Structure formats: C-alpha cells, structure tokens
C-alpha cells in the first residue's frame, strides 16, 4: 500500500466518468472499480468522492436513481448521461494530447533543442 500514487488534481472527475461508463455503479462501487482497474495504485480520498459525484450530477453528466445493491440493500446508482459520455470523450482526448506533449517534453534530449 505504500506504493500508492496521489491523484493528480482534476483527474478524479474523469476517472469517475470512466468508471461509470462501464456500467451503473453506486458510490462505493465507483471507489472499488477505480481501485480495481488501477491495480490499487491510486489513493482516492473517500470523503472527496461524494462531492465529486454530486458535482457531476449537478452538471448533468451523471444521473442517479435508487436501486438494490449486490447484497440486497438500497443504494444510489449513478449512470452516465449522453452529455456525460461526450464529456468523457473530450476529456480523454484532452488528456491524451496532454500526456503526449508532456511525454515529448520529458523525452527530449539536449541535441533536439
């Protein structure tokens, strides 16, 4: 657990959208899925998860409804909206461009400059 990475500023929203895009999830499920996909490499502050979920719903990218969890308890499930899907796509493209640029900068050698 000591090898965990701190989440980059502003990326939590994107990760939540991605996690939910794979299928409706409740809050705890979002947490588990991100941890599972990342191979437990990302540390997510549980307290900041819910404000993020509320913000995304407030902005219209997620929608929520009450349903039943795996162990038969009432839970609030979040689902991606069409706007949210577009948002995820544009965020992903932006992220990829950003990482390409940053990677190119980091890989540059003295003779290239």
């Amino acid at each position, binding site marked *: 657990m000591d090898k965990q990475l701190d989440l980059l500023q502003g990326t939590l929203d994107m990760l939540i959208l991605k996690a939910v895009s794979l299928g409706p999830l*409740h*809050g*705890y499920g979002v*947490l588990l899925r991100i941890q599972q996909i990342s191979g437990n490499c990302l540390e997510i*502050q*549980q*307290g*900041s998860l*819910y*404000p993020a979920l*509320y*913000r995304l*719903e*407030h*902005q*219209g*990218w997620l929608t929520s409804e*009450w349903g039943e*969890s795996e*162990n038969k*308890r*009432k*839970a*609030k499930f979040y689902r991606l909206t069409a*706007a949210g899907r577009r948002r995820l796509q544009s965020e992903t493209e932006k992220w990829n461009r950003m990482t390409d640029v940053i990677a190119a900068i980091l890989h540059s050698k003295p003779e290239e400059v």
Partner: protein
Amino acid sequence: MTLWSRIRSWSRAILYRARTEREMDAELRFHIDAFAEDLIRRGVPREEAQRRARMEFGGIESAKEACRDIRGTSFLESLFQDFRFALRMLRKSPVFTAAAVLTLALGIGANTAIFSVVYAVLLRPLPFDQPDQLVLLFEAKLQDGIKKTGASYVDFAEWQEQNHVFSAIAGAQRHDLTLTGYDDPSVLDTVPVTSEIFSLLQAKPLAGRTFVAEDGKPGAAPVVILSETLWRSRFGANPIILGNSITLDQRPFTVVGIMPASFHVPVFTENQDIWIPLVQDPLFGGWMTRRGGHWLTVVGRLTPGVSMAKAQAEMDAISDRLARKFPAENAGWTARLAPLQQELVGNVRSPLFVLFGAVGLVLLIACANIANLLLTRAHSRAREMALRLALGAARNRILRQLLTESAVLGLLGATAGIILAYWGAQSLNSLLPPDLPGTQAIRVDGWVLGFALLLSVAASLAFGLAPALLGANSDLQTNLKEGAAPSGEGRRPRRARGFLAGLEVALALVLVVTAGLFVRSFMAMTSVNPGFRAEHVLKAEISLPQFQYSTPQQWTAFSDALIEQIQSQPGLEQSAIAVPLPVADSCVNLGFSIAGHAALSPGTLSSADYVSASPAYFRVMGIPLLRGRTFSAEDSLSAPRVAIINEALARFYFPQEEALGQRLVFGFPPDSNVSREIVGVVGDVRDVALSQEPGPMMYVPFAQAPFWGGEVVVKSSLAPSSVIAAIRQVVQRIDKNLPVTGVAAMPGVLDSSVAQPRFRAGLLGLFGILALVLAATGIFGVISYSVSCRTHEFGIRVALGASSHGIRKMVLLEGLRLAAAGLGAGTIAALALAQFLRSQIYGVGAYDPVTFAGAALLLVIVALAACYLPARRATRVDPIVTLRYE
C-alpha cells in the same frame, strides 16, 4: 453543463430539503457499511471494521457540507441561519435593539409620511387619462409686465377654431351660485365650463349625460350637472332629480347628469358641487363677447405626437394673426402653454422638497447613530469574530452575517416605521393646509410602502456597512490576546465612531439652521403690521343672485339697506361693506392713468389694487387716514366720482406734488373707466398676503361702484356668535332666500393665510428637535464608551493626583472637540444650502447670523449636556478598584 440539470438540482434542493438531506445520509451510510462489510469479510472484527471504515472515509460532516455547497443550497440555508442567528443576537441585547429600532422607526416613519405627501402632491399622475397630454393655456402681455392671466373668451374661440395641435381645448371658471328651494338657501361651488371639458378629461358621468355643444350656445335651455357628493348629501341620492330642475340664483336649471365624486375640473379647488355651461353663468356669460377681458382658464389636450414646442409655435402664430386683426385689443398679447401637472403644483414643489430633504437628514442622522451603536457592539464582539475567523470562517461569510443583522434591524425598524407613517400620514392629512393640491388622496399605499422598504434596505446598508467591514477584518491576533475586556479600541473603529458623531452634529446643525430660518420667517410674517387692525373684526359674505338683482341700482339699494339695518343694532354701529377684503379675498388689480399726466412709456404699466368700500370701512378696519377725508354718505351715484389712494400710490406716482385733488382714470369692470378725484390718502395695507410688501391701492365709494354683493365687516365687542346671528337676521329680513357665507373672524383669516408657513416651520422645528436628540445620544454614546474604555487610565490619573475637576474637563473637551469638528463642517454645509432657501423665507436673510449662531450655540449646549453624565462617571473612578484588576 445543462441549465436544466442545474435548475432541477436547485429546485430539488429547495423543495425537498429534508428529503435530499435524508438521501445523502443514506448514501453515505451505505458506503461506510459496505466498506465495513468488505473488511469483515477479510477477517477484521466487526467493531474494528466499523471504526476503520469511518476513519478511512474522513470527515463525514465536511463531506456533507461540500455536497450541500455543490447543490447550491448553502446560500439560502445560510441566509436562513444568519437570519435566525441575527434575531437571537438582537434578543440577547434588548436595550440596544430597542434603541436602534426606535431610532430607525422614527427616521423611516417620518420619511415615509412625508413621502406619502410628496407622492400624492408631486409624483402621482393626475387622475385623468393620459395626463401628460394635458396642458394649461394662458395669455401674457410681457411688455406690460403681465406674465400670466386667463384668456378672453373671444381669443379662446379663435384658438379653438384655428389650432391643429390640440385634440380639444376647453375653458372653465369658478363662481358661487345660490341654491334655493331645498331646505335653507345655500351657496354651491360652481364651475361654469365649455362643453368640451368632459370629453377632454375623458370623464364619464355616473348617471345621465355630460354637456353637448348645443348646451353651450346662447339661448340654450339652462342645464346643470351635479357632483355625486352634492347629489347624495343634498338630494338624498334620488335618481328622480335627473330631468327635473333646481333653482340656482333664482333661475331654473334642468339636471342632466351626475358626475362621480372623484371628478373635478383641474386648477380649481377640488370641492366642486355643480357644473353649468359657461353661457348660462350670470357673471361670466355676460363677459363672453368682450375682447378685452382676460379671465377664462383654458385646459388643452395635445394631439398624440405633438410636442410642447410645436404647440407653442402654433399658438404663437395664432396670436400674431389675432394681433394683426384686432390691434386695439390683441396687440402685445401672446398665448402660452405649460404642462398641467407642473402648473398645479408649481408653488408647493420647493417647500415640499425642503421638507423631504430635511426629513432625509433626520434619517441620515439616525443611521449614523445606529452605525455608532453597531460599532460599539462590534468592538465588544471582536473576540467572537476573531474566534470564528480562527476556526476557519470565511471573512465574507462573517461580513454577510453582520450585514444580515443590520438588515434584520432595518426590517424591524421599517415595520415600526410604517406603522408610524400610517398614523403620521393621517395626522399630516388633517394638519396640511387646505390649499395644497392633491391632498385628498394622501395615504400609505403600495408606492409608499415600496419606498419605505427601499429606504430600510438603503438605511441598513448605510449603518451596517462600516461596522461589518471593520468587524470582518478584525485583527485576529490582538483580539484573541486581549480578551473580552474593552480595554482599548483599535484606531480605525475609534476614528469611525468619532467621524460618525461629528457627522451627526454637522447634519443636526444643518437641520436646526433650516428650522431656525423657517421659524424666524414665520415669526416675521405673523409679527408684521398688516396695515389694518383685525382684532374684534368679523366678516361675512353676501352674494346677490344676478337674475334677480340685475342692475347696479338694485345692488346699491340692497347694500344701503343692509348696512343701515346692521348699524342700527346696538353694538354693531361699526359696520361697513367692501369688496375685496385684504388677505381674505383675492385682489382685483386694475390699470389706471393720471389725468393731465403724459402717458407712461410702454412697459411700465401703472396699476393698483382696487377696493370698493362703504364710508365706515376705514374706521372699522382701523386703516389710518393720513390726509384729506374718507368717504361719506354724500359720495353717492349722483355725486362727482371720488377715490382714496394709499400712501404707496401717492409716494410712487405723486412724488413731487400733492396727490389730493389730482384725478385718476380707472374703473371696474376695466372698460368702465371714469375720471375720479383723489379726496384722501390712507395708510398702506398688505392686501395680497402678510408676506408681501404693500403695493399701490385705490378705494372707491361702494355707492359709486356697486357690486352684486360684498363682504360685511363689523367691529364689535359683542360675542362673535351674536354678531353673526344679527347679520343673518338682517339679511333674512331683506331677502329670505339669501345665504350668508364666508363667516370668519379677521384674526382667524390672517392666521389661516399663513397656514402653509406655519405647517412648514412646525414640521421643520420637530425635525430639528429630533435631530438634536439623536445627535445628543450619538455624542453621549461615543463619549461614555470612550470613558468606559479609559477607566483604567483615569484610575491611574487619579492615583497620581489628578483632580476630579481636571478629569471632568478632559472628558468635556473630548466631547467639545467632536462637536467643534461637526459644527465647522455643518456651518459650511448650511451656508451652502441656505441660498436655496432664500426664495422661501420672508423677513430674514438666508445667512441670518442670529439663526446660525443660535443653532451652533444650541448644539454646543446639547453636546456639553450629553457629555455631562460620562464626565461625572469619569470623576467617580475609584483608583483602588480599577487598579486592583491589573
């Protein structure tokens, strides 16, 4: 982000606050439970799992708060919280709250009450359709100094025919007609009109019809329209009256319509009993063909889209044409127009603005006072604020809470103020001079309430902003360190408090000076010598119906009999008849020429006020005879014409020579000019108003210039009621159908002629006293607070041997310094403002040194009085007690 999702989330948050709160709870609980169950599955004991789940989640409450913030509910909720907190804080300090609310209530109440008058008189649109199209048309002959007079009917008819800028113009005048045949004879307020007036004002009758063009033609059957008020009070609201006839001035008129109570023809008094066609009026009907007389009040309605300038240009062109066509009568005369509303309120606008400004100053002083109270409180709450800042409260959050507290105070003040205003508007209504237009409708309505609320918000900001800013920026470190004791105050708040107290003194000085000027002006007006002695003089008006009394011989016969019979009663020997009376009636100003003198150069019109009086008039009124003789019984219709002039006329027109024996040529009506020999010179009389310097006057014997009635004046030591009863008895004996009206004691007439100045001086005086009290409490607050902060210092001073006299002097000097700064600023402001009052005050200069010095002295005394208690407290400081606390 979609707008819809936002609205949905907000509305859900507002509408289902409790539900979303429950759902948020359930969601977070589910998270922690699910987490704990996972841990249990991995072998962690149940209790430990619960604890770890909670710990790893972090601050549940702060997460919830963050969620609430996102939903956007926090603003409303925190506003509600602030509101409740503010109420709690205000309840905790009832004395402060009561003082602040009372001060505010006085300020807002007074402002709202005055605003209700300003609104009713100046701002409310006239009660007619499209009032901005209505104009008043009048005639002027600038080269003779005549700036504004009525139109001649002939000119009116020409305007009506030739203009293309008015959709209609109509004329009106005012007259008294006597109604007989129903109970006692009574005098009705009659407005003779041309038939267009009703359609021009777009007024619909309650029953029957209004006038048609045929009613206005010469020879038409006499018709009359009744007011609803008269119809109800006099005719028992009986619809049978329609189509029947009533007797006015001994002549039958057929009732054709009834107008609703709200209707009146503008310009004249709002109490109008009946309307008749102009042509049917016994007086004005006969004047309609005279080109030279200018007496008709003309109202016009502009055609939509026509500007005032275009209408004026058209009227100029018409006047030019008329002047060329009738050079003898119309040369030099022009037609002018002015917006009706402006004309109606012209002479009350500035006095009302003075009152409004003064009452605004009262509110400003009240605000400064409350700001001071709040600053004091802010200081004692500095630790609370510092603590909250230290615990992470945002500065703007604290600012908002402090402003909410001010707003709650403001609203409480406004509520109490509106109650005061409601009551104030009612008492203002009864206090207001009756000659103020539009006063029938003074009340606290939606507009006035809106004004009060706006005022309370503005006031809350005014008194809340500075304390709130200082409070929210309070210095964390020092305030936490210093503890709760108000041992010393920061420089900024102390300066702010000193500034506010100085401001109060300055504003109070401005108000007291204004009040002083108006009070002195009023005193000057009432102490002036009117030129006649009003004591024990009664007057009563008798107006002869002109259909019955149609010839001057009849008028003379009546007045001779009347005066003779009154004078024969014991105690009533000093009786006379005259028209018009000074101050009580409007003046009749006539042009005259001096026989044998060269005509005066054009532009200098010789004119004088004209009075027709019976011989005893000068003795009854106490007007002194300076030279020559007064009228006698020999000055009859068959004797040579004579006149008496006043000193002003003699001095101005006969500066070098003896006026006695000279001849003046004049007459009333103006075209009956006759040469009259001057037989006497009497003292000057202020006949227009007490505040107007006496001008030239000329008197003629009533017998030589009879009138269809007049004012009986009686000087008697008998009780007024028995004098009036005797006059009524004599009149009834001569003609039982004659009403006696306008009964009044002359001192009372003088008194009510200064009703407006008295009202203004009284109200301003009240505001001045209010300002003094507020300024005194302001200074008291600052000084006594400063004394309580310096208790320790005084203790040391006393311990080191300072005398109580020295300490008292220190405190008083501190107060005087505040007052001096305020007086300096206030004097400058008052000097700057006083020049605007010049036109409204009489007999006292705008920079009257007595008023200025008196006001300043008054404020110094008030300041010293306000400092007295704190100073005494300072001298009573016991050094042992204060120093022990160190």
